[in-house]
């Protein structure tokens, strides 16, 4: 397990985002353990997905996820692709989002020729994160 999965450029970007909320163990503010984890805290409302289950596509770079609490449950959003899911806990909603992204990617690829503007933009965004070749 090593931090090398996080390219330097992304670490720099995350550090800029998290300047106001340093948190022990935060990947952006200096991970104490130096280990790569599947669901890593970035700051109080932003997390990163570094691996996804249920997909044959290779993840090229970590996905930043924004989590907000709405009406007693949590909503996780991959902002760049405008993809969201809900869950009862932060851990659950992150896992749900990872699983959802993997499934939606397959659906968008299967319907590649029949996508409206929203899903088309989502596929473009996901294409920057996954090896689709």
């Amino acid at each position, binding site marked *: 397990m090593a931090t090398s999965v996080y390219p330097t450029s992304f670490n720099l970007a995350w550090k800029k985002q998290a300047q106001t909320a340093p948190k022990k163990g935060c990947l952006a503010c200096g991970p104490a353990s130096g280990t790569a984890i599947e669901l890593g805290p970035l700051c109080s409302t932003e997390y990163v997905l570094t691996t996804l289950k249920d997909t044959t596509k290779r993840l090229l770079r970590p996905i930043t996820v924004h989590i907000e609490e709405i*009406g*007693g449950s949590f909503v996780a*959003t991959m902002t760049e692709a405008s993809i969201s*899911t809900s869950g009862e806990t932060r851990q659950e909603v992150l896992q749900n989002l990872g699983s959802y992204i993997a499934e939606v990617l397959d*659906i968008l690829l299967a319907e590649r020729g029949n996508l*409206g503007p929203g899903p088309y933009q989502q596929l473009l965004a996901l294409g920057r994160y996954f090896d689709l070749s």
Partner: protein
Amino acid sequence: MLTKQDAVKIATKLNAEYSSRKNSVHDIALIHHKGKLVAHFGIVRGSNRDSGHNHISKALSVGPHFCKELSICTKTREDWIKELEQKALLL
């Protein structure tokens, strides 16, 4: 708050088709318009009908109030399509 029960009603109201993968934690509601996939959202599997599904308003590009109205039938699929057209989210 939008619940799983609301999510199922909204999917029905929008004539969604379901995509379900074995062992997945959710079913995916796919909404097509004129042969194009225009939106999708997940409905978490499980028995809790009151579990939160507040992500649906983002997925449908409308506010939570609009979604609630879809679920209680004061808004229709046509109303939603008009909303998307006004936001230039349809071809």
